[in-house]
């Protein structure tokens, strides 16, 4: 099992969800995040003083998947999130040692889906 973490542009979330649903990846967790990366920030001015903002609003998606789904999931995220512009974001893949469904106590692959 893998735990896939993706940072995407906020306005791409719906597209990504769409792409994942089509691939039957229907479970995920989403949070907001501020991201700093290649994408340059923007300039804010407040009451005469300026400031460079380089922490941009991003969406963080966390998806636990079983091995067979890893690539599908990654492809789906990319297809939904890619605009070709800097700031599209990143996908991180980490090992998932175990997964438990609280309601039933199921563990492992059965619990992921």
């Amino acid at each position, binding site marked *: 099992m893998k735990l896939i973490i993706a940072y995407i542009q906020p306005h791409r979330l719906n597209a990504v969800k769409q792409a994942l649903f089509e691939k039957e990846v229907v479970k995920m967790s989403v949070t*907001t995040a501020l991201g700093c990366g290649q994408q340059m920030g*923007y300039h*804010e001015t*407040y009451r005469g003083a300026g400031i460079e903002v380089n922490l941009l*609003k991003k*969406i963080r998606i966390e998806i636990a998947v079983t091995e067979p789904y890893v690539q599908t999931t990654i492809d789906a995220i990319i297809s939904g999130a890619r605009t070709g512009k800097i700031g599209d974001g990143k996908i991180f893949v980490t090992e998932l040692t175990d997964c438990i469904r609280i309601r039933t106590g199921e563990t492992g692959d059965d619990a992921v889906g």
Partner: protein
Amino acid sequence: MKPLLLSAILLALSAQAYADDVTLAEVHLKANNTWMLVSIILVFIMHLGFATLESGLTRSKNTVNILFKNTGVLAIGLLTYALCGFNLMYPGFIDGRDATAVAEAGTAGNEWFGFAGWGIEPPEGYDPLTYADGNYTYWTDFLFQAMFAATAATIVSGAVAERIKLSGFLLFSVVFVGFVYPWMGSWKWGFGWLHDRGFHDFAGSTLVHSVGGWGALAGVIVLGPRIGKYIGGSVKPIMGHSLPLAAIGVFLLWFGWYGFNGGSVLSADPEAVSKVFVTTTLSAAAGVMTAILMSWLVSRKPDLTMALNGALAGLVGVTASADVVSVSSAIVIGMVSGVIVIFGVPLFDRLRLDDPVGALSVHLLCGIWGTLAVGIFAPDQASFAIQLLGVVAYGAASFTCALGLFFLLKITVGIRVSEEEELIGLDIGEHGMEAYNGFQIFLTQ
């Protein structure tokens, strides 16, 4: 008859004690003018109502922009009205319906356009006591009308929110508030041709709200919908970011409406003003009730934004007739207005006309309904035909002017922000500033 004579003299004496420091006429003017001053203040605060309502019903990434627009439009409206608006709206046409005046003027009075000069200055030999039969002073007159003026542009602001370029909108406002609104206003309130024909619009269902509504319609058409509002065949609701702000806005608007309608009596006439208060209040309440019930029926769950719009609908609806209809008629007018708003909002969505705050349903549709309602519920005041004529005339003129203006701006300065800016939000795009610093907010829409 001696006692009588004596009493006459005694009275004379007592009265005389004050005769030198204040006369009845002066006190009368004070009583009237004070009410008009209060009305000015009430109409002023409506601009905060618009600002909060509009920002509450839109996304947090465009809040700064909306507040900025509302502040700017108010300032622009007041200054341009002082510069030329007032004298465009009240160019001194002769009251064509006043037989004697017409006789003297030797004209049937069918004025279309007039301008009494730049800036504001009391007329020759100005005497507050006689300026408006002791109802208000020149300055009160100007300011009350000036507060109205900015309203028309503010109505547009809500409908074109979240995608219009700041510069473009401000330029539009200058022309719309500075020239279009007052010019058209002169047709009726300036004793122009529609006044002569007996058109009745008490406080501006048409002159203010429909005129603004038509302007909004033109803007919505030229701008097109916000990104993501209409996808394929379906309507994707774009939710407002703060319903408390929206509620504050509606209550403040209702609050200010007592000055908007109550002040339009143009004196403190107790019976007239208090009657207007009652019709205005009950129409608003009726609008809320029908909006609540309809939205409960239609979408199974009662919609707060609809209940709030229902109040505004009732207020706009009764604005043309508040002075002439009965209490029951006012309630009916409000109920119909509430229904109009419930069906108006989805209607415009079906037409792919994206109006974030519902200004089209509230100000345009209910403004029209309210104007026609005069012909229905107070036919003795004005025939349905003449009311219809007014609606059409103002609609045609306002829509054409606004459409032309927006097109002109589109091909010159441009009126729509870039897609990128629309996505990141106009607050950062136009102002480099956020409305809620530090708050973690989903910007997925």
